[in-house]
């Protein structure tokens, strides 16, 4: 499968891998948009700060990218696992 994915488009290999969502904690101010945009992975703690549940699977990658773009504090980063 990896060989086939590599043949389709540049960047496709990275899209097949799991990603990790990391929070820049000093930047995060608990606005909660990430929870609205990515409830599959993100919960909020007692104070409204994100609890990142699991890795980002390829199916959730688009939603995760939307959460990264949507964060008004630019406090989320998506990194290949």
């Amino acid at each position, binding site marked *: 499968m990896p060989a086939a994915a590599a043949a389709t488009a540049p960047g496709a290999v990275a899209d097949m891998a799991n990603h990790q969502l990391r929070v820049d*904690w*000093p930047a*995060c*101010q608990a606005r909660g948009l990430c929870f609205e945009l990515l409830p599959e992975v993100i919960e909020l*703690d*007692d*104070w*409204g*700060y994100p609890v990142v549940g699991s890795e980002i699977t390829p199916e959730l990658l688009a939603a995760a990218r939307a959460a990264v773009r949507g964060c008004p504090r630019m406090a989320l980063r998506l990194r290949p696992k």
Partner: protein
Amino acid sequence: MTAAVLGPLGVDVERGPAVLAAIDSGPSLAAHRRWHGEPGRPQLTPLLADLERVGLRGRGGAGFPFGRKLEAAAEASGRPSVVVNLSEGEPASAKDAALARTAPHLVLDGAVTAARVLGSREVHLVVPGADLQVRASIETAVRERRDERIRFDMHRADEAFVAGQAAAVIELMAGRPNRPVTTWQPAAVRGHRGRPTLLSNGETFAQLALLVLHGVDAYLAHGTPGEPGTALLTVHDDLGCRVVEAEFGTKWEAVLASDDVDRPVLLGGYHGTWADAGELRDLTVSRTGLADVGLTLGAGVVLVPDGCPLTFAASVTSYLADESAGRCGPCFNGLPALAEALHRVTTGIGGRGETERLCRMVERRGACAHPDGTARMVRSALTRFPAEVDRHARGGCSYRAGGGG
């Protein structure tokens, strides 16, 4: 054993087998050279091999292999900086202050060696801003080395628990507040001014210096085959506070005052782990041996509290909550809640489940390891003293007269 007394801090420093071997002849460069000689100029590859053989790990608490850090700094792009972090954010640790006062040139030999190996001519020295004697001692030592083609830059760290954390130190050096920030790469790859930065504490550089000055065989002569060398410990007990150098493999009975192995001991400082009464009797000063039973040596702080360990843990947690830099939400909100929950455990009004839940909630959710370290210490208190937790739940305490519950 000879003891030198360290001014107003009242910390006794005992002469030791290697790092603290020459403290009786004073901190001058001449005395240092008489005892230790001149360091050679090792090349990177053989030095990395030597570091691998002696297994030197960072002595700031995390215990990362020093050779790997050095190698990462050497391989990363850009001219590396060397940073000696003498700031010791943990107030219970006095070993780097003791080194700065009694053996500053050992630390500087290690730093200069590292700088030369990395092709760098600057060494940054981060000293505790509030400790005038450490500053004065390092300034004197630097003046004695005017002839060396190395630039020493001094930086004064804030008096705050998290100010000694690596990313916080690099912030300080950049002229920003001395507090942790999120880093996406280790400092060895991208640190001061975006360049590779070899940042370690004073003891780590002193250990490197010993290796370079006296060679691998001399280093291997101390400690055990699995863990060669020595470690500096800051011991707090009924006798006060002292800094001692112990060979790895030394029995705790030999380090602690007479019956203290039969008392609960907090190992590794405020971010450390609790040993139950008597548990240390069969254990030695050993990172791996302690790790096997879920204990940590951390930066070498050993606290024997006078009284109930659970109550002590609760007051340390309150202190650590106050020491949150307030930058990361889970730490700023979570640590005070955790301190409150643990206080409820000690006063017998529930809180145990809440304490465990809050430990999980703060872990890995900050720019630095302050929440993780706090949760580690709290969790260790709950798991090491279950009988004491039960006694407190019934309003008792085995350390209070008539409080056997």
